[in-house]
C-alpha cells in the first residue's frame, strides 16, 4: 500500500473515509487491530464496565435518544 505522501496543506490527505460515521469507526477501532497486552488497559473491549457503557452508548447512537449525560456530563 505504498502511497505518495501528500503535502499537509491538502485538507483531505487521509486514507480513511472522511467524515465517517462514528458507529462505523467504533466497529473498527474498538474490537479489532492487533490486540497486544498493554500495561494500563489490556483492551478496552475486554473491560466489562467500559464494555457495558459502550454497549448502552452504541445501541443509542443511531436512535437519537438523548443521552442521560447530555447535560452536565464530564468534559
Amino acid at each position, binding site marked *: *500500500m*505504498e*502511497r505518495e*505522501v*501528500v503535502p*499537509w496543506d491538502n485538507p483531505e*490527505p*487521509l*486514507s*480513511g*473515509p472522511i467524515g*465517517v460515521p*462514528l*458507529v*462505523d*469507526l*467504533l*466497529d*473498527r*477501532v*474498538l*474490537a*479489532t*487491530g*492487533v*490486540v*497486544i*497486552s*498493554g*500495561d*494500563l*488497559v*489490556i*483492551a*478496552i*473491549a*475486554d*473491560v466489562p*464496565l*467500559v464494555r457495558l*457503557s*459502550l454497549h*448502552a*452508548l*452504541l*445501541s*443509542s*447512537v*443511531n*436512535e*437519537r*435518544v438523548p*443521552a442521560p*449525560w447530555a447535560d452536565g*456530563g*464530564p*468534559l
Partner: protein
Amino acid sequence: MTERGLEQDAGGSALYVFAVCNAPDPAVFARLPGVAAGVPLRRLRFGELTAIVQTVRAADFTDEVLQIRMSDRDELERYARAHHDVVSAAAWSCPTVPLPLATLYHGEERARQALLEETGRFVAALRRTAGHSEWGVKVYAAESRVPEPSPEPPSGTQAVRSRPAPGAGLAYLERKRGVQAQRERRHEDALQLAETVDAAFQNLAAAGRRLRLHAPERGGKGHVQVLNATYLVADRRATEFEALARRLRDATGARIDMSGPWVPYSFVGEV
C-alpha cells in the same frame, strides 16, 4: 484485566501506541494532535519495525477515567477520531497495522519490549494486508411499500369509528395471523438478502467479516440493517468492488452503503 500499578503512578506518564508500520514518514502526522494535546507524536523503533507513539498522562487513562470519557458520546467520538486520524496518516505513508484504542505502556522500554515480542504477528499482518484495503458494506432491507401492518384496522378511517361489524373478531384474528406470516416472510427475505450480498462480495474479496448489526434508526424510514460486513479487497480490484455494489443494488433493490477504503483494521488481528 487492568494492572493496578498505574494508580501508584497516577502522576506519571505513559506511552500510547497507535500503530505499527515499516517506515512511516514523520511529516504525515507531524501536525496531528493525537490523544494528548500539545505533545508531539513520535516514532519508536523496535527491531525492523516502527511504532507511532505519544507520551500521555497516565492519570488520563485509568479505568475510571476511561470509563467516564467513553461514556460521553462527544468525548468518545473525539478520542476515536483522534486515534483513527493517526492510524490513517501513518497508513498514508506506509503499510500499517493499527492497534486498538488505549494500548498503553509505562514507558518506552516497556513498550519496545512488548512490541518486540509481537513482531511476528505484526510482520504477518503487514504481509497479509499489503496492497489491500478494507471496505465496509452495510445492507438495508428494501423499504416495503406497505407500512408495518398493524392488527388494528387503519386508524382515522370511518371503519374505526363505526361499531364493530359482524365477524369483526374473526377478521381481527385473521389480520393478526397475516401480520405474523408477513413478519416471518420479511425476516426470511432479509436473511436471504444478507446471504446473497455477502456471498457476492466474499467472492471478490480476499477476506470478509461480519460485524454486529447496528440498531435501527428511530424515526427513520423503516430501513432495517440486515448486513454489516467488512471486506479485505486488493487495491487493484477496488473499482470492481464498487461496480459489484451497483449491480447488487439494481438486482435486489436494497440499499447498499459502502465505506472505504479503510486501513485494514478488521484484518490485522487474525493470524
